[in-house]
């Protein structure tokens, strides 16, 4: 009797276990199964196979362009969707779904776009002017609560009022004149409007499809529609694998060479490298510092300058009191007292470049001379220990102290800690009497402490929302949401306001105002201390050609990629 009871329990447990383990494989097989030969097909096959195997470092959070905020989602839209404009290989916005350049009214406020007549969605529907009207109205609709709705604020007429619930979404300055004609009315002329048109939140949406799917829209690859070179397949909504196949209805499909792209998420760089070395992947994601150091001289290593700028941000007012950093000489001393080049070369080693300015290289060009903003603005504050010490002495005298203790706030990742130690060492060595205390906290805590101005120095990075220096500069307006330093300068505010309003329709004057603003911000007032422009280092197989990377919007485009073995 007792024996049989034992036996019963053990059998039960084992059965249960097998049921559970069975479930496990089934669910993953489902996501992979439909894709057929998936994962391994790239390996060891004949030369002509146009299959690319990629690695990403994070899951896709959403397939809904209106809700998307993160790199992984925008990479997907970069392959599967096309807006009025797209970015070419040099990050210049060029007409995409728009049939040529728009007609612009004299005051620069009214744009009339023609939509390509041969542009189609992957279900065969034509892409129409209404797709843009629907999508943009959806993005500013407070009920939809898009986190990127502010990308329309101050740009498209009435967007701000609609977002704040003071106007109906039908009042938005966008109108379908006919099926292929879209009229857009701006609040004021916007120099960088073409780059916004290439941005994810400005993509068109097929009204019928989105309404039909309702809450399910964008939650897996079945519930998505493409109008770009590829369609997303085999994505189950939260999985670590997905793939792309060519979009049969794409207007420019003859330019697309790849027949299949398989994507695998690998969150640790080590795994990515191992997959790369066993030919399971043709490209790794960005390698973190310890691996970048190891692979920087590898033949298959490739670096790219991203659009984000990193700097030390100085808090001048904490708990209602001036910090030592309210003293301009102290700020200048610190900004000149660390070696940026040795930092990017040894600590980061990932293609990041030292920077003596705030606006990153490659972002914007002079409207007349085509000269890069960074180049034209030049080196605004450089590493110079002697000068730093002079400023330091002067600053200490002005404050009437001999020693200063400051805390340095940053994230708690391995790399952030290493970076903190580097700056602690540099600053304490070069500036006598300075004591730096490192505070490493999780990302969300860092944000909170920064917004509350509960810090002295914070390691801060900023990436562009559009291709124009303004996306960096207007942070430090007196009432800028992300100012968080206590910096307030009438002169600076005026320059920014001039660039935004007064010279809105005068590109050259606007450009000069921005140059002046950056100079004031960095060289004269040294509100922040520029360090570097971030780069990324990846390994990519030499047979992958035409892989175009971008510093804004999607990290890369696969449209023209070709495998040449």
């Amino acid at each position: 009797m007792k024996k049989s009871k034992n036996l019963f329990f053990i059998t039960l447990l084992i059965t249960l276990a097998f049921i559970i383990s069975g479930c496990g494989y089934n669910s993953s097989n489902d996501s992979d199964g439909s894709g057929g030969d998936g994962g391994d097909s790239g390996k060891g096959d004949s030369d002509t196979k146009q299959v690319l195997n990629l690695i990403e470092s994070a899951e896709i959070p959403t397939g809904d362009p209106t809700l998307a905020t993160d790199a992984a989602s925008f990479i997907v839209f970069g392959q599967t969707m096309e807006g009025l404009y797209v970015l070419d290989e040099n990050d210049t916005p060029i007409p995409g779904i728009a049939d040529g350049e728009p007609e612009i009214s004299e005051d620069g406020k009214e744009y009339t776009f023609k939509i390509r007549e041969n542009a189609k969605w992957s279900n065969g529907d034509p892409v129409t002017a209404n797709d843009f009207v629907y999508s943009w109205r959806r993005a500013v609709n407070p009920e939809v609560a898009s986190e990127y709705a502010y990308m329309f604020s101050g740009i498209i007429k009435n967007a701000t009022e609609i977002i704040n619930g003071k106007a109906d979404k039908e009042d938005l300055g966008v109108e379908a004149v006919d099926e292929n004609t879209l009229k857009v009315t701006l609040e004021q002329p916007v120099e960088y409007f073409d780059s916004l048109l290439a941005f994810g939140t400005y993509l068109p949406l097929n009204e019928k499809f989105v309404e039909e799917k309702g809450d399910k829209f964008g939650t897996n690859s079945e519930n998505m529609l493409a109008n770009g070179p590829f369609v997303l397949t085999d994505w189950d909504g939260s999985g670590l694998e997905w793939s792309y196949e060519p979009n049969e209805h794409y207007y420019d499909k003859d330019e697309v060479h790849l027949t299949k792209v398989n994507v695998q998420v690998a969150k640790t760089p080590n795994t990515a490298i191992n997959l790369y070395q066993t030919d399971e992947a043709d490209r790794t994601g960005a390698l973190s510092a310890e691996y970048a150091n190891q692979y920087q001289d590898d033949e298959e290593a490739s670096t790219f300058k991203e659009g984000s700028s990193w700097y030390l941000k100085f808090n001048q007012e904490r708990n209602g009191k001036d910090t030592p950093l309210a003293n301009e000489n102290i700020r200048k001393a610190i900004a000149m007292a660390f070696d940026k080049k040795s930092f990017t070369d040894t600590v980061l080693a990932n293609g990041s470049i030292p920077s003596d300015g705030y606006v990153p290289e490659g972002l914007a060009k002079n409207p007349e001379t085509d000269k890069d903003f960074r180049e034209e603005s030049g080196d605004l504050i450089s590493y110079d220990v002697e000068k730093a010490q002079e400023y330091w002495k002067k600053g200490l005298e002005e404050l009437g102290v001999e020693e200063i203790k400051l805390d340095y706030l940053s994230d708690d990742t391995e790399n952030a800690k290493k970076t903190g130690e580097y700056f602690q060492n540099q600053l304490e060595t070069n500036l006598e009497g300075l004591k730096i205390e490192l505070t490493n906290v999780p990302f969300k805590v860092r944000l909170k402490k920064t917004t509350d101005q509960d810090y002295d120095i914070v390691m801060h990075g900023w990436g562009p929302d559009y291709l124009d220096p303004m996306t960096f500069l207007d942070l430090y307006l007196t009432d800028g949401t992300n100012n968080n330093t206590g910096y307030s300068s009438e002169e600076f505010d005026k320059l920014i306001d001039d660039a935004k309003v007064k010279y809105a329709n005068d590109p050259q004057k606007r450009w000069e105002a921005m140059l002046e603003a950056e100079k004031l911000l960095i060289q004269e007032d040294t509100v922040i201390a520029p360090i570097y422009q971030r780069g990324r280092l990846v390994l990519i197989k030499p047979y992958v050609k035409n892989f175009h990377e971008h510093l804004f919007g999607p990290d890369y485009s696969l449209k023209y990629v070709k495998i040449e073995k």
Partner: protein
Amino acid sequence: MAKYLTQRIIYMIITLFIIASLTFFLMKFLPGTPFQNEEKLTEEQRIILDEKYGLDDPLPVQYANYMINIAKGDLGVSFQYDNQPVSSLLLKRIGPSLTLGFQAMFIGTIIGIMLGVLAALFQNTWIDYGSTFLAVLGKSIPSFVFAALLQYYIGVKLEWLPVASWNGFSYSIMPTIALAIFPIATAARFMRTELIEVFSSDYITLAKAKGNSRTEVAIKHAIRNALIPLITVLGPMAVSLMTGSMVIEQIFSIPGIGEQFVKSIQTNDFPIIMGTTIFFAFLLVVIILIVDILYGIIDPRIRLAGGDKHE
């Protein structure tokens, strides 16, 4: 037995309720919002978002709403994955973690028990030292180091097994081994100590005096008694293995729950934090119940309350 079970199930529900409530309030102390683009949000936008997700309600109201929804079986919608219901996310992610955890547990305890028995049977011989050495190694080498080594040598160098990903049994072998190291070490150590103790007890001496061989005694009498303390450790360990090892899942790119749970805390994905915690807690109380029932089966001296009492 039925009465005992009913009582236990009521306790289980109370426990779950307390855990859910505590987690809810602790979680709300986390700094920041659940919005991914937090840094660039304007104040007006944050207010709109808070309103949409009911985050502007007073805490007790949010708590009541959440509890009512849970009672209805609605775990809410994730913030990290827009419009994805927490229940479907959990369902998709829990499979691989359970599979891996179960495999590791199964292999781990069997090998561990065998090592422990061998060590005890051949006490103070090279077999014993070898097994102890392995156990110490298994306890002291972190599983991610072991995982990375496995991946490099077996996956990259020898190419015997796939490096990473999750597409069938062969993909689960390396992560299972990496994860099994800990249960092997734990089970081996426990088994050895317990067996040696049992071997010195009177009834074993009696069994031996009756002319049974040492192996026979070990199998028939000693192992069963030595298993009891082991079960106590194995219960909670099973939960920790099955709820996913974040590091192993990351290294082998397995779509499991462990890694997602940690990420949900870092990103303030409140519904996922709650859903996963409640699920883990549920698993834990169920396993504790199973362990208690198993006690009764393995050791007849332990009687479940309300069961047939002999004393």
